[in-house]
Structures are given as structure tokens and as C-alpha cells.
């Protein structure tokens, strides 16, 4: 018998394993994409510190996430949608922006007040989006009210933010924090940075905000992952509530977006799901977290993707649409009483799952 060891694994070992497995999984996917087309683009409405705004969301194809190429996050299948191999040129990126603007012109009556740019990596990482491109994009959207830019915390830098605030665009850096708990982020998500890095990024954004003065606001929007693999439903809920609370407490972080995990192809989560080892979170869990954190000092939103399907967050099929609607409603109004309007017999099942699911019997339901 070995002696009890409080910390029972070597830090790096887990990461190596995750990466090795994820690399193998991702390698099964064969696809490549045109660097002159954005990965995706769509129009929507979003709650922002300045109220609910019409939004244009752009998934920029930037050659993909470096981390993902090393293996990457256990739930993330986006990498494979990026350009194979290297980086994307300035021209190509700007072509992508043009495509997006055309989409907007074709589908909306007026320009969106809010622009959101994601890259499946870090917009602020200059190896992905060079300074030239960043500045050009800042200029392109100079007439908009607000912009959201995705980045890992390492790359958050007041100078880069200033490329947008200088055009009086309120600027939010979207950070895929996933959870405030380093252990879960490392072991379950396989994301390598720490909460302290996030706090540093927030401080940087706060600084940028101060520097921008009244012209524009700058801040951090934290993206959290509801129910990473290996956690039970109740562990996921608890981790999420505490993560939201901790994020909201950080100066500079004004919004938290909770993303319920969905099962993407060519991910470790998919492997688990395929072998009955993973179930996406209940929509009740999402609603519950929103209710429980309604009074934190931040906007908390969630936009469950693929709700109601087996691979997305879901309840019992009967009530999925209703609960999803309440969540979207909450996103806009931040009013927890919206959840009082929905109920379903399956809430009892969910409660039992919270009470009884253990990591050695999960998932208890399909």
C-alpha cells in the first residue's frame, strides 16, 4: 500500500495525457477551410452593460488555436474548423470581415450596435491576428457602440485594447475562463492558465478602461463552461455558482457568460458521450445557476447551444424549449422570476440526479 498523498498526481502528467488523447481524436477529422471565409457569422441580440443590443457575431478563421493543435481543451471541437497548418494573412482576414459586413447588410435593417469576434483562439494573440489587422478591424467598426474580442488572458494588454477604445468603441475582452477553479480548468478542461492570469487580465482591462476615460469603456467578459467532463451534475452546478461569484468579484469583469457544454465531434467529451460516460448539463442546472447568482455584481447570461438535443444541454424533451426560452429571457432582463414561470415533472428527476449522481455512477440519465 502506498502512503496517503494529498495531491495524488503529477501536474504535468495529466496535461500530457489529455493532449496526447485529444491530438489523436482530432487527427481523425479530415477537413480544411477557405481562409477568405469566416468560420461563421450571425445576427442576434445581447445583453451588455449598456443594455440589450443588436449584435453581429463573427467567428474569424485565424488558423486556429495553437493550444488545440497541441491537444487542447477536452470539449472543444472548433479547431478542426480552422485553417490547416499556419496563420492567415492580413488580406484574408480582412476578406473575412468583408463577408461578414455583407451578411449584415443583407440581413439587417441597420448596422449592429455590438460586434463580437471570436477566433477559436486569441484575437489578441498577434501570431493569430497581427497588429495591422487588429487596428484595421478597429477602424472598420469605429462606428459601432461596442465590440467583444475573444482572447486568452495572457494576451490581454491595455495597448491592444486601446486600438478599439481609441475609436470610442466600448471594448470587452471575452476570456474563456471556463471555471474559476484551477483544478477543474486543468484536469477536466485541460486549459493551462490559472485564475490568477484571469485576474491579471481583468486588471489590465480595468487599466485600459481608466485610460480610455469617458470615451469608451473597457472590460472583461468571462466565458464559463457549464459541466466539463468528469464532473457530476451537482459538482458542475456548485463549481459554476462559485465561479460566477468569483468572477463577478473581480474588478474589470462586468459580464459572465455561462456556456453549457455540448458534445462536439472529435473531442474527448464526444468519446465519453459515445461510451455512455458523459451527459450534457440539464437546462434546469443552467436555470438554477442563473437564479442563484442573480444578485452578483455582474451581468450573467447563458445561451445554451443545441438545447433539447441529446448532444446539447437538455431536460426531458417536453420542457426543453420552454426552459430555453426562460433562459434567453433572463439573459435580456436579468430577472430570476422568469424561472418561476416554467415547471415540468422532470424537475424531480433533475433534483434526484443532483442528490445522487457520483463520479462513479455518472451519468445517471441520458
Amino acid at each position, binding site marked *: 500500500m502506498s502512503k496517503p498523498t494529498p495531491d495524488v498526481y503529477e501536474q504535468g502528467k495529466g496535461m500530457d495525457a489529455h493532449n496526447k488523447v485529444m491530438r489523436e481524436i482530432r487527427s481523425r477529422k479530415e477537413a480544411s477551410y477557405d481562409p477568405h471565409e469566416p468560420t461563421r457569422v450571425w445576427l442576434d441580440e445581447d445583453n451588455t452593460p449598456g443594455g440589450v443590443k443588436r449584435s453581429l457575431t463573427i467567428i474569424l478563421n485565424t488558423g486556429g488555436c495553437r493550444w488545440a493543435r497541441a491537444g487542447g481543451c477536452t470539449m472543444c471541437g472548433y479547431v478542426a474548423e480552422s485553417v490547416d497548418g499556419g496563420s492567415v494573412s492580413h488580406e484574408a482576414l480582412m476578406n473575412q470581415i468583408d463577408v461578414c459586413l455583407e451578411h449584415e447588410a443583407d440581413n439587417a435593417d441597420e448596422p449592429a450596435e455590438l460586434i463580437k469576434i471570436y477566433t477559436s483562439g486569441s484575437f489578441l494573440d498577434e501570431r493569430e491576428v497581427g497588429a495591422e489587422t487588429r487596428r484595421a478591424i478597429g477602424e472598420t467598426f469605429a462606428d459601432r457602440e461596442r465590440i467583444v474580442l475573444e482572447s486568452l488572458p495572457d494576451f490581454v494588454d491595455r495597448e491592444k485594447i486601446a486600438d478599439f477604445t481609441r475609436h470610442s468603441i466600448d471594448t470587452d475582452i471575452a476570456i474563456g475562463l471556463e471555471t474559476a477553479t484551477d483544478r477543474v480548468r486543468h484536469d477536466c478542461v485541460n486549459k493551462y492558465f490559472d485564475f490568477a492570469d484571469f485576474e491579471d487580465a481583468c486588471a489590465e482591462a480595468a487599466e485600459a478602461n481608466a485610460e480610455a476615460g469617458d470615451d469608451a469603456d473597457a472590460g472583461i467578459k468571462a466565458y464559463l463552461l457549464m459541466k466539463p467532463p468528469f464532473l457530476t451534475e451537482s459538482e458542475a452546478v456548485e463549481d459554476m455558482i462559485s465561479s460566477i461569484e468569483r468572477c463577478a468579484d473581480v474588478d474589470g469583469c462586468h459580464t459572465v457568460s455561462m456556456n453549457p457544454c455540448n458534445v462536439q465531434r472529435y473531442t474527448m467529451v464526444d468519446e465519453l458521450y459515445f461510451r455512455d460516460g458523459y451527459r450534457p448539463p440539464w437546462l434546469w442546472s443552467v436555470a438554477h445557476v442563473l437564479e442563484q447568482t442573480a444578485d452578483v455584481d455582474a451581468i450573467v447570461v447563458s445561451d445554451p447551444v443545441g438545447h433539447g438535443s441529446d448532444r446539447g444541454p437538455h431536460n426531458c424533451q417536453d420542457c426543453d424549449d420552454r426552459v430555453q426560452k426562460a433562459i434567453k429571457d433572463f439573459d435580456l432582463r436579468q430577472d430570476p422570476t422568469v424561472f418561476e414561470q416554467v415547471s415540468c415533472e422532470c424537475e424531480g428527476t433533475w433534483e434526484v440526479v443532483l442528490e445522487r449522481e457520483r463520479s462513479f455512477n*455518472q451519468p445517471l440519465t441520458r
Partner: protein
Amino acid sequence: MTDYFEVHARDGAARVGELRLESPRTTPALVDDVLEDAGSLWSADRDVPEGDESTLTVLPHRAFPGGTAPEVQESFAVDYPDVDYPSVAVVSSEHATDHGTDAYAVSDVQSITGHGAALVEAVVNTRKAIPADTALLFSGVATPRNVAVLAYAGVDCFDETAAVVKGMEGRYLTTDEAYFLEDLEDLPCSCPACQQPREEFTRKDCAEHNVNALEAELGIVRRRIRDGRLRDYVEGQARHDQWLTAAMRELDSQWGYLEERTPILRDAQINAATEDTIRRVEIQRFADRVTTRYRNRFSNPLVLVPCSATKPYSESQSHRQFHDAVQWRGHLVSMTSPIGVVPQELETTYPAQQYDTVVTGRWSEDEKGFVSSVLERYLERNEYPKIIAHVPDEGYRDIVERVEEALDLEIIYTVPEGGHPTDDESLANLSAALSGELKYAKREREHNTVRAIADYLLGDGAGDDLFTDIQTTSRYPKIQVRDREDTQLATMVPQYGTLSFTLEGAKRWVDSDAPTKRVEIDGFVPHGSVLAPGVVDADEEIRVGDEVIVEGPKAFGVGRAEMFGREMQSSTRGIACEIRHVEEK
């Protein structure tokens, strides 16, 4: 060291055990109320809990659900601390190892439940990795329908969880189905939860009912294990879900796992009610022993006869009539499905005396194939001056003719077409076919019987090695074997057709060329039982019910095994064998 779990009864891979907590619990059982989970290391760092003897503590764990890659399992593997209270380690069925705990929870239960081959592979893998006297826990999967098969495969502990969850989902569980509650016009159950009007019956009540049904089924399972009849139950129960039948069949394919755990004798009937009975260890082992260990010692003609429902056969009316015609001039061998062939000397052995089959007179092709192959192997090994088949048309004659052709034999048939073996004409033919043959004496019969049983029990040639120069006393089937000096060597035990050795017999056995099964013990003189901790080593060939030589620095004895060999080696609790005779050295 498993201080807190002990196996009390075995039935194949299933066991009745005892969780030795402050209030002991008999397994297979639900353990919800005594299970304390110290928590998952995925979500937080955890201290090793205080623990106590009233609960079974699940030590801090990283569980790997189904689909977790081997590299991830390896790199995140947890070393469990050594604690002095009842504890559980969480292991994945793919990478289970011995952690010194009393019980093991399998982390990928949800992936293996519902798939026959996966379940069996998981249980067999895990059981191989953990000591025999530790409990196996499946959390979150037990239902009234599947729990018998899970226990049959070798799982000891369960919980209410799946029953409750399904109930809350509106599934009404019975031993045969998971009915949609809304489809039920009335509640087919008499448990307290179901004692209310249908329209007032909620999903919470449904959950309660499900737990009641599960508890009741576990009661049946425990009783069946004690009775040595769980397999008979499972041959019916498994039919209610395809994957359970698949699991039962897959387990039959795990010969090594199942054979080791199946006693060589038992005071319980074997129901031969389905085609799967043929694949039971007891049936296959009997056929194997009859065709590789047993040897006919009579020089008379072979008389093949059909089996009888009455056991032992010689007490049936039909066999009495055969005997009246044969008059000890032929060697009677009974043909039977699903046992194969049973020479007269072995009619009392297990399970020749204990099986009971469905009587419709119809033979399946698989039955015919099995019995033919056994008869063929039997006749390849045993030569007779003449072979008489005193069998009816249906099934029997078919089989004999197949073997006759395959081995190019010449067989005399004494039952006319369409006739019955007990018809006067048939019996007259039988007698006529034996006319001129010499009768063998009672002494020859008895000597050959104990020799045959020795072959069957101990190995090819054992009968001659041990019992060349003997005399027999007392009446069949309670024959006593004595040497020329009248010292008793062994007694035939008629309930199972086995032999009980005396100390003198045991010594003769040890000195002979016949293979012995030995339990090596510490320096003490055992009386009554030898407990597992006293066992230094044991032959891996030992099966429950085997006659064993028990020897240590201070004692020589003979007794009967209560565990199988590897179980004796790896157990730290429980009775390894019962001593019949012992002497100090």
C-alpha cells in the same frame, strides 16, 4: 487486508457476503445508507476522511467514466491511502488494481450496463484484479430486472439510485419490464407505495415502488445463492431483457472465470429448462470428466438406455425393468439431455442425480449434437465387446446411429421401431441380446463403482492408483472402502456420489500417483474449520466441494474445500475448508 467483508456462500460467481459494519449487512444488497462518499478529486482536493466502522467510506477518488482514454486513466490514477476503517476504492473496469480496500466501486458502470459482453468483460477483469474476499459495488445501475444477472456475474453491492431515478422519470420497474407509468391502468404490485388509488400515484411513489421491487428481488437473489440455484433463476429472469440473456451467454463463454467459481457438487437441483443449460459449467464439466477421466472396467457388453425422471436412475421403474432384463450381464450407460452419458457407476454423482429436465419428448438439434459428441468421445475411450442400444426412436436412436456411423461401430438395437424400451417385446429383445453373457458379481460392481468415482473426482487413473487392492463393505450406495486389513479408507456419499476419505485413505491417496489437491497451512492443528488466514498456499485446481489434503508443519488432515484454490490464497477472511480428520505430526 479485508477486515470488513467476508464471503459466506458461493454460487458460481455470485456470493452471499457480509459487510462487517457496526450493523452488518448481508450482500448482495443495497448499501445507500451505509455508503459515505469522501468525494471526487476531479472537482476539488480532498482530505482522507476520518471514517468509522458504521459506514463504508469511498476514499477520495478520480472516477473514469466509460470512454476515458487509457492514457488519461493512467496519468490521473489515484493511490488510495491505507485506512483502518471499511473503505471503498473507485476503479475503472479497464484498469482495476488491488488497492487493499474492502470494496471496489466500478467507475464505468453506466457504459457496461446494457451490453452483455461489456458487462461480463468488466466484471471478469475487475474480479481478476481484486482479491476474492472484497466486495464489488455497482452504483447507479441496479433495477429489479437486471440485478439478478448483475449478482450472478459477481457484483455484491448496489444502490437505490437507478430505481429512484427511473421512478422519477415515470418508469415503473418490475422484474420483467420498465413500464411507462402512464400506460398502467392499475399497479401490478402489492408494495406499500402501490396501496393507493392509481390516480394519486406520483412519480415519487413510483420511485418508492421501484426501490421496494429492487429490495424484494435482492431477497430472492440472496435466497437463490444460498440455495445454489441462482443460475436456474437467471435462465428464466434473463429472458426479460435481451442484453441480460446476452450477458448470461457471454459469461458462459468465460469458462475460466466461471468454472473456478462453480462447486463440484451441491445439494440443489439443476433445472434444464432452456438450451443454455447445456453450457452450464456443471454440465460441461460432467461431460468432460466422463469422457476424459472415467474408464469402464467391466468386460460385459454396453447397454445404452434412456434416462429416467427419477434419480438416481436405478430407483426408477423403467430402470428396474431394464435391470430385470439385463441381470448384471451388461454395463448400463444412460443417455440423457443435457448431461450426455452416465455410466451406472456414476449415477449418484453431481449433477447426474440432481438435474431435472422438461419432459416433452422433443430433442433440439443442439441437444442431439451435444449428446452425440459426448457419446462419441465416450466410445472412443471405452471399448466394449458388444454394444446394445436399448433406446426409443425419438432423439435417442438418432444419436446412437450418428455415433455408430461416425465411429464405424456395429450396434444392436433392441427396441422395435415405434416401440418403447419398457414394452415386453423390447425387454425380451434386450434379454435375448445378452443371452450367454456372464453376470458380474456384486463385489466387482462395488469395486468398480468406487474406482469409477475416484476417476471422476480425482483424475484419469485415480481409481486404479488408489483402489487396486480393496474390499468393500456396507450396502450400495453407502459403500465403504477398506484395505485388506479392514482399515477404512473412504466412504461413498450417496447424495452427491462423492468419496469421503479417512486419514488412512488420505495417506494412501498422497502416496499414490493420483493427483492430489493440497492446502498448505501454518504451524497449527486445525479442528473443524481452516480459516483463510491460516492458509499458506493452496492448489489452484481446488474447487468448492473438493476433497483436499490439509498439511502443515504440525498437522496432516483431510477435509472438504469451502473456497476455490485461488480464493484460499488471496482471502484474509472466511472458512477455507472443513476438516474431517486430522492428526498431529
